[in-house]
């Protein structure tokens, strides 16, 4: 699978890494049972802090997409991100777009509330 991160983007690097894994799962280029690269290797190749990669992996684990086992690394457990994970991804994009145009979190929440009614 292909990891791509852009350090100049307003999206945090950890979110970009997690998004790469989600996209690979949606595109079926990554399937259950496959392993993700070790955090150290990924961090070194992408020039990011290892904790950033670990945070991305932890997010994916919390979404039920991967399993983190000591000595085995990160193993894919789910075929595709569930609706909740997709929503989390969409919210991140909304937050990034809001930051770009200078909106704060409260203003975004107001917009979302309006969309619900």
């Amino acid at each position: 699978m292909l990891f791509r991160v852009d350090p100049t983007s307003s999206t945090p690097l950890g979110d970009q890494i997690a998004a790469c894994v989600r996209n690979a799962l949606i595109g079926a280029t990554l399937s259950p049972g496959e392993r993700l690269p070790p955090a150290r290797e990924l961090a070194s190749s992408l020039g990011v802090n290892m904790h950033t990669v670990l945070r991305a992996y932890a997010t994916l684990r919390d979404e039920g997409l991967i399993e983190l086992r000591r000595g085995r690394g990160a193993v894919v457990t789910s075929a595709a991100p569930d609706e909740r994970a997709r929503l989390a991804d969409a919210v991140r994009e909304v937050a990034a777009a809001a930051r770009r145009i200078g909106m704060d979190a409260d203003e975004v929440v107001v917009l979302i509330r309006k969309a619900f009614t």
Partner: protein
Amino acid sequence: MNQVLRWLTGLVVLPGAVLAATAVVVSGWVGRLPERIPNKGGGGRPVVSTLATEPLITVGLSVIAGLWLLGVVAFFLARLLPAPAVHWARTVTQLVVAILVTALCGALLLVLASALDARSPEEVRSPPLPLAVGLPVVVLAVGALAFALAGRRSSGLPVAGSPPAGVVRLPLADGERVLWSEQRVLRLVIWAAAAQALVGVVTAVVVGLWLGGEFAPVGLVAVLTAVVTLAGSRYRLSVDEHAVRVAIGLFRREFPLTAVEHATSSALSTADWLTAGMLNGYGTTMAPTPGPAVRLVFADGSKFTVGCEDPDTLAALINGLRHRQHVA
């Protein structure tokens, strides 16, 4: 550190320093040693036979120096081997020389230290405990240093120019960082290892019942080959802006991206896969199974094929990275 300097340090300076230090220490001890030391017995037990101390020192140091020189000769002869084997042959030579010289010098010091200030072979004690315990640690440390000094094999490939205009490239933004990562577990190899282990266990039981329990460990041979086979059950491929790295078990190859002129999507049929070594030269293909692959083309015209699940994307990524490097 420069590779020549590394070899020089690991093969000449390191064993030379150990040998010189031993010679200095031993020459300082000569006046405190008895004329003969126990060959058999001693250290509290009755002395059965003895050895002359000075010839032992002279012969011992000469043998160690001879082994060292033999290692240096073997190191230079390694250049006659095929290119991929040269580095490993030199690494093993350097490692063996460092370990042998340190272990033999340590053993000599250990023997002589127990005879210090003794007036006769009967007064020779057991070797001092700190020296006996410290020797294996020092040998391991020197071995690790020699191994580290050998370093990794350089690809020896020339730096490539810009990729040809017609190749497919993945558009990459300036500063964008990428990693292609592929990891596969080779189930066929795991099954083969399991079968070998089973054969080993069955052999041990059958041979044990047939010829007696002392022959049962014969089955261990198959179990050991199973362990070695199992070590080759992982395939890993990674590509980033620095290098293309591929590994099947313990066999690894790494090519700096600057040496890759361009990459093309390819496919290995079963016949191609089986005959790749014979037709294209051994070490020019690394694919765990027949199927899609990426062919790397280097500046000197040589090629290397690696198995890959999505060769179109990977070839475009490599070409994109090379193009960006060249433009920058």
